[in-house]
């Protein structure tokens, strides 16, 4: 048996109780929601905690509500499965359903939560291994060691930001709320992430994520594609999320985001600038897709499945495919398997 290390366990019923528990010793305490990221990591002994605080018993963190301005608020411990089955989300943010349905596998989505997906640990072939494996080549700098095995001369860690809901929620302009015993703050989701494989969140250890607010889509056309080896279970090596607002022949506003190509979600600023005010047609899309590959932060290295050069090339191909889908142009590539989109609500 691959067992968890011993810890003390807390099951608070309110947010106040939970943040008070975290405030006592944030450096040695971790919160758990679905446990589908934290527990494998603790079993492999690359994340540890003396004390674990479960958020599952806190009713206030759970569920999906619509507010008067048409935005939708999702509680952090809402399961991924519940999101894919929610009629409001299906209707307003169909590409979010595609993105969430592409995460892990149906059994894992019954436990995994949206908050856990946003706070997911960064991933790397040299890190997501058991203790014996890591000891045998010597630990890397993300955990205990001094060196990065992917880029040995590099002073930093390049572990990969892999939450598949992240690029889609960034493209939709989502905001999050973080709560600690000192109060609460609301920030754009994109500001939660830092371009550093070790210190990948701007969230403090004593803060918990309570809600995600997605503004009303008001006419946005959206798309999401994910690249991975198998159609289930595997983490992605690239995800592309687009949300575009077009008026007749011109693109008023467009958001293009990449996931799993670096330590942080990547906004394709040059591609976006190239499309504003232009129609979405074969030429403009091809040009924007070519720019996407050069976006700052999009830096596939040898620490995930597949060869980095090919993953780089696929950024261009997938951005082109998703933009074509958003523009309603004919498909030129096979759509990947994204999971249970057609399940009943």
């Amino acid at each position, binding site marked *: *048996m*691959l*067992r*968890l*290390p*011993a*810890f*003390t*366990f807390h*099951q608070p019923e309110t947010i106040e109780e939970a943040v008070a528990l975290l405030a006592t010793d944030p450096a040695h305490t971790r919160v758990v929601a*679905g*446990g*589908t990221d934290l*527990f*494998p990591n603790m*079993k*492999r002994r690359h994340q540890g905690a*003396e004390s*674990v605080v*479960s958020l*599952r018993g806190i009713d206030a963190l759970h569920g999906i509500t619509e507010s008067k301005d048409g935005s939708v608020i999702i509680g952090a411990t809402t399961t991924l*499965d519940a999101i894919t089955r929610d009629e409001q989300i299906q209707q307003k943010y169909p590409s979010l359903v595609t993105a969430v349905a592409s995460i*892990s*596998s*149906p*059994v*894992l989505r*019954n*436990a995994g939560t949206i908050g856990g997906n946003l706070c997911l640990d960064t991933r790397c072939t040299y890190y997501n291994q058991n203790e014996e494996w890591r000891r045998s080549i010597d630990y890397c700098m993300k955990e205990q060691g001094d060196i990065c095995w992917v880029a040995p001369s590099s002073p930093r860690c390049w572990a990969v930001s892999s939450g598949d809901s992240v690029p889609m929620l960034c493209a939709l302009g989502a905001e999050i709320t973080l709560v600690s015993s000192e109060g609460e703050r609301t920030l754009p989701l994109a500001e939660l992430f830092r371009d550093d494989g070790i210190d990948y969140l701007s969230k403090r250890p004593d803060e918990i994520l309570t809600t995600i607010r997605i503004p009303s889509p008001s006419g946005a056309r959206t798309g999401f594609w994910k690249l991975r080896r198998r*159609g*289930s*279970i595997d983490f992605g090596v690239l995800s592309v999320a687009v949300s575009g607002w077009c008026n007749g022949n011109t693109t008023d506003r467009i958001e293009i985001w990449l996931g799993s190509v670096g330590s942080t979600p990547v906004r394709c600023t040059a591609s976006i600038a190239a499309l504003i005010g232009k129609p979405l047609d074969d030429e403009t899309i091809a040009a924007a897709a070519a720019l996407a590959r050069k976006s700052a932060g999009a830096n596939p290295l040898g620490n995930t499945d597949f060869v980095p050069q090919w993953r780089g090339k696929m950024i261009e191909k997938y951005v082109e495919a998703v933009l074509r889908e958003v523009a309603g142009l004919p498909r030129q590539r096979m759509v990947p398997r994204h*999971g*249970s989109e*057609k*399940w*009943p609500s």
Partner: protein
Amino acid sequence: MSQQSTTRTLRVNGEPQQVAFAVHHSLLEVLREELGLTGTKHGCELGECGTCTVLIDGKPVLSCLELAAECEGRSIETVEGMMQGNQLHPLQSCFADLGAAQCGYCTPGILLAAQALLAENDSPTRDQIVEALSGNLCRCTGYHKILEAIEWAAARLRGDDQYQPPNSAIYGDPVPGKQAKDV
């Protein structure tokens, strides 16, 4: 670090049982080691294979990533609870009759994932079955007979006794390129 233990009442296959365990133990460990229910298998123990699947409040989840301490007050169903008295569940008898289990290691998890699917959809399409099982790996059968057995069991559960799995599912296709028909 010293272990914190706890005593909880877990309702497994309809029966409430008081059980003592360390708080960091997974439901999988408690089912197998404290309750002696070894029908639930342990494979990767990291969420990647699905063989430890059980139903919690009717939903299939991975018992290797679930803390037993979080399961109090929830209804847990394992493969041991599928039989009614001496009667196999239709999924179990269809799996047995079609040879949908070879080594059998993946079978308990797949039976439960299939049971949950059929509870919400009594006539799933082939694609919906594939999707529902896409977190459960089988290294032996090639999945074909598993899918046929679930379709057969679904028909039996709907009361359709006329349904027959295709001959190729029972006898295989002995000559490449030819269908095993009229056997």
